[in-house]
């Protein structure tokens, strides 16, 4: 009798275990589209056998734990690829904007430079022409406008980036705090001997997002808590304590600070990774470099024209006049590329003549100025004004092309790693269906087993009648 009741009990465990397994399958199917969800499985083991006389007979089956399919290596790979992907993403929007500003259409600074010198060439054929003189001044103003236009566009791009950085930081602080909360929960659940699968999955998703955005580094401590650091080593999450990133506006500039346990740390671009690093690199290095080149061009250009212009004579016979505003007179906060301004107020001041008589047909100074276009080399380079500018545009093109390639490479790599992760941790409907059939069969057969034992008990009870 004892053994029949044992069998009844064993059948019960089988019924419950298969049912539990089906529930796990159900959870898997339910989470098939949940980002970061790791497939769970019920770990089964037979209940330790008891000694019946000479035999050890099993006591049924039990679910010992619900574990998740998880591969630390793949997840770490995914995290580090996300950092790379994030960095390129952070660059790509601004680079697309920069490509628009430094375009290769017909309407750009190079065209304005060409037009300016063309006006001087036209003036050489009729140095006394009032119209030609006015056109030279006008072309100079257009050129100044073009310089200013580009400079303003660069300002706008940087302002947009600052706005984006500030908006992004708010969301990131939420995520950092959430990691700390999940740490707390995981350690509490797991100290009680259970596994906090869902919380770990959620934390992994956040980790990936934070890697992409900030390039965070992570390590897990012995309580199962993950600690997050910025690439420079500043702590973002320590156990259940989260730091806060704040944005500080300084004029038009935005920089970051980190509030860690009551103290404030300056976050420099080199302390960052991922999208933020990409954005700061473009803003503080790439665009700054472009500005510097534009300023070099503006300074060199106005100086070269002024030098020639000063040696020439206006049709009023006056010499020594600047054509453009002298950059040496600018204050320390004035941007040269914003101050390419024609200072002549009247066509008669245009120094076309090379001789003090300033005879109407004298075109010597105009010839010399026109020849600066191909003859002058920007200081410290072998470039004409035009080729110096084309170098700036090519720099933007090279960086944008590199970014596009790197971005699509990183995207492909993350897609591949996500596939790899899915191959390990993901939910496949086919697999779950087959498991479902398997556990259903298990459930059915244990029910049949119970019915059989029940019949056997009935048979025994019938004996007495």
């Amino acid at each position, binding site marked *: 009798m004892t053994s029949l009741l044992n069998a009844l009990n064993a059948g019960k465990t089988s019924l419950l275990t298969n049912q539990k397994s089906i529930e796990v399958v159900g959870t898997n199917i339910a989470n098939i589209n949940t980002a970061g969800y790791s497939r769970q499985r019920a770990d089964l083991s037979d209940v330790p056998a008891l000694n019946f006389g000479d035999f050890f007979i099993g006591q049924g089956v039990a679910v010992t734990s619900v574990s998740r399919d998880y591969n630390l290596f793949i997840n770490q790979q995914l995290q580090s690829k996300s950092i790379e992907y994030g960095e390129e993403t952070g660059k790509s929007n601004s680079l697309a904007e920069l490509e628009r500003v430094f375009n290769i259409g017909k309407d750009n600074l190079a065209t304005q430079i060409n037009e300016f010198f063309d006006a001087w060439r036209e003036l050489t054929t009729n140095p*006394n022409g009032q119209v030609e003189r006015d056109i030279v001044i006008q072309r100079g103003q257009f050129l100044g406008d073009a310089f200013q236009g580009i400079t303003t566009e660069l300002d706008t791009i940087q302002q947009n980036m600052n706005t984006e950085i500030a908006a992004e930081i708010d969301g990131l602080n939420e995520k950092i705090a959430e990691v700390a909360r999940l740490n707390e929960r995981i350690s509490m659940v797991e100290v009680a001997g259970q596994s906090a699968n869902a919380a770990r999955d959620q934390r992994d998703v956040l980790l990936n997002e934070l890697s992409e955005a900030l390039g965070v580094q992570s390590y897990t401590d012995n309580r199962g808590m993950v600690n997050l650091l910025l690439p420079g080593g500043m702590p973002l999450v320590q156990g259940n304590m989260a730091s806060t990133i704040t944005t500080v506006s300084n004029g038009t500039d935005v920089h970051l600070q980190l509030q860690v346990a009551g103290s404030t740390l300056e976050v420099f671009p080199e302390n960052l990774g991922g999208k933020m690093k990409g954005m700061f690199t473009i803003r503080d290095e790439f665009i700054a470099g472009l500005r510097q080149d534009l300023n070099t061009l503006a300074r060199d250009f106005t100086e070269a024209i002024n030098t020639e212009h000063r040696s020439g004579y206006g049709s009023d016979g006056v010499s020594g006049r600047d054509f453009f505003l002298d950059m040496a007179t600018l204050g320390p906060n004035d941007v040269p590329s914003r101050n390419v301004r024609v200072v002549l107020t009247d066509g008669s001041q245009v120094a076309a003549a090379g001789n003090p008589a300033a005879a109407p047909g004298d075109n010597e100074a105009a010839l010399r100025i026109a020849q600066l276009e191909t003859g002058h080399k920007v200081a410290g380079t072998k470039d004409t004004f035009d080729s110096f500018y084309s170098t700036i545009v090519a720099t933007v093109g090279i960086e944008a092309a590199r970014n596009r390639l790197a971005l699509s490479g990183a995207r492909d790599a993350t897609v591949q790693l996500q596939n790899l992760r899915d191959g390990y941790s993901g939910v*496949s409907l086919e697999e779950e269906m087959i498991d479902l059939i398997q556990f259903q069969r298990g459930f059915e057969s244990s029910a049949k087993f119970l019915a059989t034992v029940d019949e056997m008990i009935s048979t025994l009870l019938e004996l007495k009648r």
Partner: protein
Amino acid sequence: MKATQATTYRMLGSRLDDISRQLEDMRLMGTTNKKLNRPSDNPSAVGPVFNIRQQLAHVDRYVDTMGKSLDTMQATDSHLDHVENIMQQAKEIVTNALNGALNEEDRTVLADSLANLRKELLATANSSINGRYLFAGYQENTVPFAENPAYDPLLFNADDSSTWPYLYQGDAHATTLEITPGETIPINLTGSNLFFGTTSWDPADPTQNATEPGRYNLFVTLTRAEEAIRANSSDDMQAGLADLEGAAQQNRQLRAQLGNRAARVETAMAHQEETRVDLQQILSRYEDADIFETFTAIMEQETALQAALSITSKVSQLSILNYL
């Protein structure tokens, strides 16, 4: 490794993304007919493209400048032709005057006709194009030559231009224009050079102005010949005849110089026109999309997109769920 639903849909999504993006790029290429739409399409083409565009702009300007130069040169040449005629006629008149059978009245008629030629020469020397005097040097707004009211044959001094029969109010600068990159060429003759036989001219100090050795002052030659006829001095007439020939020769020389320069401008112009075609071809190689290549590629991508879309729609039909 198993293929999950997420893998399948992720791959389909990313592939559809890629194809659509490529198709978008190619459509842009197809509609603009340019393969260079932004610097990153080919960063190494940026420099050459800007440079070629600059050169093309130069070509247009040079061709324009050379056209204007040729106008000036042609106008100048026809005036020099006229000067040639004047000197020829003057020689004929003096030769006539040397004929001993002429009486004083005949000689006065001849001298008067020389005086007329002198006025013709003055008119030629003061000719203008578009309101700019051709032979005034840089002083193109000033009538270059004027009769000297103070002229006195007895006070004539070859080394003092204020005693000459005609005064020059222009200067000694010929107009120079850039006709090809770095090459400048004088496109006209100065009055002092052509009519006074001197390449330097100091308007402030007349004693600094003298006809260069071996060269001629055309106005003086005509005036002296006329005076010789009026004075019936056959020696002076003989000398005048020789001077007139020398002066005509001087005119021919300068005319030939100008002709050479005009020929140079013409070849340079033809060269610029050729350069324009070459430059446009090179520019096109950098910028323009091959229309057949582009459309073939677009069709290829469209086929790929169709295949990807049709596979996407079929994927959901293949599942164990359909067999349970």
